[in-house]
């Protein structure tokens, strides 16, 4: 059965954080090898985000550090990464050098598409596991496991749902402001949203265009204004990126357009609070990056210590988040990709500002 765990906060109210944690534990364990990894074993870990310097990746590091302390791992946990302009080449270099650096696991939020596959395969052969989180290796080559923040197919439904709740039952026209054109997670979400839009349920929502702000404030800002100029009948900008959503909201506010055009997508509550208050962005969603880092660490630790083999059906304990099961990744069929899904979404709006 396909899980539908995203919570619309109207039903959740003030208990959102508690439920966020408890829904994750509700996953039923299935048959398969695995269990709890014994703490105190030495595993050298590298946490490698797309690039350094964005709040969400720092939060993932917090979660990983929490798990690192909890499991009393005497090995090292290094939070390293390239700078943004060097993201693709830098990531490949880090993965290439990981075995020589004595790392047992690289936890990677991939920003390099399949270009990183040769480096990941080489690392895997040299005994360094590559566990992806946030953004996978599209072809899954060299990747042991992908820790998905949410079910990628569900992201599209969540975005379509928010779009309809903002545009009303009559529907309307909107555009997507994404990050980079080759970000695997962004493209998967956009594809799944397009799929959702093709169903009768969201038939009256029309996607005008997808544009890219490269996760840079200024480019996202300019792109948002360009969208406004290009499409006079656009009523919503959907930005599934934390940088893009806040830049778009600022652009519309500066130009006094918030009455006619709204912004939604994936955003951090503390960055979005002022736009939530003034109505520029009445609703947006996100998951906990702290939990994502925490879960990724637990999965990587279990894999590296041999507590799980890393095959379909394996289950393991992930501390405060409960039990998780490895499954085939339906969003990347025919690649043999494996994933675990953290879930669920939190939707933020006037009833649940999240700060």
């Amino acid at each position: 059965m396909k899980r539908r765990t995203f919570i619309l906060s109207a039903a959740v109210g003030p208990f959102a954080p508690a439920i966020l944690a408890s829904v994750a534990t509700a996953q039923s364990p299935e048959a398969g090898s695995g269990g709890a990894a014994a703490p105190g074993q030495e595993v050298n870990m590298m946490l490698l985000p797309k690039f350094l310097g964005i709040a969400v990746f720092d939060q993932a590091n917090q979660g990983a550090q929490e798990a690192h302390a909890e499991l009393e791992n005497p090995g090292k946990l290094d939070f390293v990464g390239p700078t943004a302009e060097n993201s693709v080449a830098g990531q490949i270099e880090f993965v290439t050098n990981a075995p020589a650096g004595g790392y047992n696991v690289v936890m990677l939020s991939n920003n390099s598409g399949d270009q990183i596959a040769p480096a990941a395969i080489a690392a895997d052969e040299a005994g360094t596991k590559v566990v992806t989180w946030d953004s996978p290796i599209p072809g899954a080559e060299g990747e042991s496991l992908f820790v998905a923040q949410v079910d990628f197919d569900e992201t599209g439904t969540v975005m379509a749902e928010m779009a309809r709740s903002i545009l009303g039952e009559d529907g309307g026209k909107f555009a997507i402001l994404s990050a980079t054109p080759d970000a695997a997670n962004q493209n998967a979400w956009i594809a799944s949203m397009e799929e959702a839009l093709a169903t009768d349920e969201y038939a009256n929502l029309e996607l005008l265009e997808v544009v890219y702000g490269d996760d840079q404030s200024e480019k996202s800002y300019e792109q948002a204004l360009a969208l406004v100029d290009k499409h006079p009948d656009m009523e919503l900008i959907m930005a599934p990126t934390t940088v893009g959503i806040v830049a778009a909201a600022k652009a519309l506010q500066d130009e006094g357009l918030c009455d006619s055009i709204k912004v939604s997508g994936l955003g951090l509550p503390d960055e979005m609070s002022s736009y939530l208050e003034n109505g520029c962005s009445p609703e947006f969603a996100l998951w906990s990056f702290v939990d994502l880092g925490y879960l990724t660490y637990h999965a990587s630790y279990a894999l590296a210590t041999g507590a799980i083999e890393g095959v379909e059906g394996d289950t393991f304990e992930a501390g405060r988040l409960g039990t998780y099961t490895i499954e085939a990744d339906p969003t990347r069929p025919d690649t043999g990709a494996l994933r675990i899904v953290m879930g669920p979404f939190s939707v933020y709006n006037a009833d649940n500002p999240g700060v």
Partner: protein
Amino acid sequence: MTDRLLRHIRPEQFRELILLVVTIGALLFFWTQIPNYFDPRSINRLTVGLAIPLVVAIGQMMVVLTRNIDLSVSSTVGLTAYVVGTFLTRNEVSPWVAAVMAMLLGCALGAINGLLVAYGGVPAIITTLGTLAIYRVVLVEISGAKTVTTGDLPGWIGSLPSKTLVTVRDYDLRLMVAIALIVTIAGYLVLRFLPFGRRLYAIGSNPDAARMAGLPARRDVFCAFVICGGLAGLAGFMYLVRFGNITVTAAQGLELQVVAAVVVGGASILGGQGTIFGVLLGVMLIEILQQSLLRWSGLSEFVKDAILGLLILIAITVDAVVLGRLREAWVNTRRRDRAAARLVMEGGADGAD
């Protein structure tokens, strides 16, 4: 006919004329492609978009005049925007104080470049390529992955970007644009009338000769870098005001846009040549291309980047070829004039030997 024309107009002025024609041509082309292109709203977007690159380009041009280059400007913009932004989230100061802070910080960063290049003798391209990376890494380190967000900034920052000084039939002159124009005019006055400005041309034309002639070449080069840094700092403040949300990638890639604008505007990378008017045109052309390509429907993202690069390349190549021809012609007419004059002076009778 062309001979007579060439005698009176220097090749550099031809170049600015050509650039003006190309710019108008680009505007007309996009006007046929993009609906409502000359709307007040679009024009306002364009002028506001110009402001930040223009301020940085004026500083960059001063450095380029001295046969140097400052590639670190984008990191300076990002770093000052972030530092001043962080300061403003914790302290209440007036906009003026914040702007001066940003400029001083920019000057300090520029001074590091200037010291290394002018007094350390390190080639500018190496120095500023290094500081481009270093200033960015400093930003990454001090930020601790925290983003400066509009919500944390004082209220006046939110209202500054849309602050308008004059409005004529919905065409705004925004405060940001006015600041950039003031900087441009100041830059023109400095380069045209101040001894310092004239010396920058002399140093760039022939650094050795300038030194032999007793010009304080080192000090002047140092000052050019400090001014460039200071203007990048001011641009950092404007960046903070305009975009409000400052991540560690702030202003990344701006150095390419600015260097391209300066070169397209006719400043020679070999120093000693260039005018403020040319730089203004160069910044305008590149900004028009960028903003218009954003609004030109039906093109993929990758193609847009390639087109922008191609257009810049064409502009520079055409410019170089045409200008090379013009200069040759200009020199030839001068030489012929001089030969004719000599002939006249020598009385014509001895012309046979």
